[in-house]
């Protein structure tokens, strides 16, 4: 069985030959980089993923997080992996140099994340969410808040979450009920319950920064009355020192089909005097801000699904090349050597379907990331605008296609292994279970369809008609 992650050559083909990311080097933001730097960064990601993430992928699945005495216990390898990721600088890599980052292009960062996802998707969720939460802080938090929370989220002392879903509201975010009461010092006190919050509690980091959607008392109904708050697990004094424990409690853990080493939490805000929260950006604009994170997360979910599909394929391919079984229809000699199963037409069909789903999905997601890159850094404003619009239109598909067809690829990979694929001795059944999440979170497939047909296409059509 293979121990390789993805395929370096294929990934580099996507990056350098399909997307021509070397062209980014002409943009002033990336003047300090070169291809050798990109390659070294990708190699480092591959090595770290292989040494710190892959080895405990099955263990994290078999020994899922435990809730004991109000605390969460994770297998210790998770912490080692988190530390290695942070220590290598991946949490800070894409940030501005002036904030202490290395201005790594987003598309290179995402390609790095592909290695981590392929190695261990549920441990990778912790840094994945932290990067997203830090981006929100960076983009929308007031300077004082940003200075207090961004640096520790970039160096790995704090992790982050996105807390939208509630026991009563999942798809219908406009109906959330968590409330925020203004306090005298300008902050807020939050009351309510959040559910399914990934990474909502653990002891990987000394603090957890929750990016919470809530409704300020008296806010208008629906999506236009939702604000975004930064709610730390432990309060942080203005000098950056940790203070008292905030009024955020872990009410319980959810027990999942896959993605098990990621804690899925139910969190109670304000069982006492209220959880201290800081408004991020303007009141009632929270959903729009959160959409930045969600759009990024949606590409990330697509990419996660694509890499799990790819990794399933890599395993199935390696197995098919080694497993001798049966003979070709043309062979009449019962004593002749058995062929490797890759020689059977049906096994090839299974493999080629997987390859098409996996490579197509990977390509789509990296393309989406390059559009996000162009929207932000293309020197020509018109090019930037067009990239942004195209990305907006494509995002529901970038999230949904790999999620749906990635699971199918993982399913076909099980088929290639036959009985072995159904056992826990091989990783395939876990890839399948892990990948089954992707059509559900970050907006279900149905919600993506509504977004595409109800909103995005309508807008695009109106625009096209208007232009012609």
């Amino acid at each position: 069985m293979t121990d390789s992650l993805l395929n370096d050559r294929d990934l580099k083909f996507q990056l350098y030959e399909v997307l021509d990311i070397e062209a980014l080097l002409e943009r002033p933001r990336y003047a300090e980089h070169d291809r050798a730097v990109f390659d070294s960064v990708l190699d480092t990601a591959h090595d770290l993923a292989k040494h710190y993430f892959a080895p405990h992928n099955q263990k994290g699945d078999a020994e899922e997080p435990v809730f004991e005495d109000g605390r969460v216990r994770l297998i210790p390898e998770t912490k080692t992996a988190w530390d290695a990721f942070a220590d290598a600088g991946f949490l800070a890599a894409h940030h501005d140099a002036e904030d202490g980052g290395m201005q790594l292009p987003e598309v290179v960062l995402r390609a790095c994340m592909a290695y981590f996802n392929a190695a261990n998707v549920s441990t990778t969720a912790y840094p994945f969410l932290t990067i997203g939460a830090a981006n929100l802080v960076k983009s929308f938090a007031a300077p004082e808040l940003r200075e207090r929370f961004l640096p520790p989220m970039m160096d790995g002392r704090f992790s982050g979450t996105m807390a939208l879903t509630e026991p009563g509201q999942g798809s219908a975010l406009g109906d959330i009920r968590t409330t925020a009461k203004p306090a005298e010092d300008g902050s807020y006190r939050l009351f309510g319950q959040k559910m399914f919050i990934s990474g909502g509690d653990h002891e990987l980091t000394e603090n957890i920064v929750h990016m919470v959607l809530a409704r300020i008392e008296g806010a208008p109904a629906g999506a236009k009355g939702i604000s975004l708050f930064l709610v730390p697990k432990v309060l942080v004094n203005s000098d950056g020192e940790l203070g008292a424990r905030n009024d955020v409690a872990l009410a319980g853990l959810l027990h999942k089909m896959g993605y098990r080493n990621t804690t899925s939490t139910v969190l109670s805000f304000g069982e006492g005097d209220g959880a201290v929260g800081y408004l991020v950006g303007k009141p009632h604009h929270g959903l729009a801000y959160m959409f930045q994170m969600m759009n990024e997360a949606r590409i990330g979910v697509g990419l996660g699904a694509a890499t799990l599909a790819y990794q399933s394929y890599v395993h199935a391919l390696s197995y098919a090349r080694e497993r001798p079984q049966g003979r070709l229809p043309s062979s009449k000699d019962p004593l002749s050597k058995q062929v490797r199963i890759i020689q059977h037409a049906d096994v090839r069909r299974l493999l080629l379907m997987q390859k098409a789903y996996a490579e197509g999905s990977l390509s789509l997601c990296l393309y989406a990331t390059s559009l996000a890159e162009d929207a932000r850094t293309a020197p020509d404003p018109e090019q930037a605008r067009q990239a942004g619009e195209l990305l907006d239109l494509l995002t529901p598909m970038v999230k949904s296609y790999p999620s749906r067809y990635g699971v199918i690829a993982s399913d076909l990979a099980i088929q290639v292994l036959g009985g072995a694929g159904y056992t826990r001795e091989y990783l395939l059944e876990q890839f399948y279970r892990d990948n089954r999440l992707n059509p559900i979170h970050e907006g279900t497939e149905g919600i993506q369809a509504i977004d595409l047909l109800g909103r995005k296409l309508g807008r695009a059509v109106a625009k096209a008609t208007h232009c012609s």
Partner: protein
Amino acid sequence: MKILVAVKRVVDYNVRIRVKADQTGVETANVKMSMNPFDEIALEEAVRIKEAGKADEVVVVSIGPSQAQETIRTGLAMGGDRGILVEADPDLEPLTVAKLLKAVVEKESPDLLILGKQAIDDDSNQTGQMLGELLGWPQGTFASKVELGDSEVSVTREIDGGAETLALNMPAVITTDLRLNEPRYAKLPNIMKAKKKPLDTLTPGDLGVDTAHRLKVVKVEEPPKRKGGAKVGSVQELVEKLRNEAKVI
């Protein structure tokens, strides 16, 4: 105190090695290359000595094609201070490599020279020993522990049946074994910083070394596939098989 570390660009240890169709060597086209793992250990040791305040400079030297610059950059990202590439054929013989390194040593005058015990491509395990001999320096090969004194370095080396510890006068040559340390990963900010560190390029001509091959490769082929083992019922049967089937006794 200056340490010189020699690093070689080799086929990555994860790559399944394939023999070229014409049997002249190993396939390296489109194959991932990286730093020889034993050399990573050598570099790690040098960087640790520097971090402990016992060395001022770590110089990373590679002999190979121009792409070996990337290997040196990796070394600089791991903590080397500057690099020297001797641009030459990738398949030089150990004696030639030792002569080239000797010439670099004469230019650089390091106090300590650390190399991997062997490169995983040809597994020669000769360069360090030849170099020590050419320089007339003491050598501690297969090091699993290195402790630096004032003018001496103590090297614990793995030998058949255990370990022995040698005290070497400096300057000295050390070659590293697997257990010496666990090399670090290059951190991303250091990958950027490495770009700015100096890297000089020399040629064998600059160093006055003739790189002509003295050995001739007749043919490269894969080792024969291992045949399945068999259980024997008795010592007698074993002896009988060794004599008549394997014909080794």
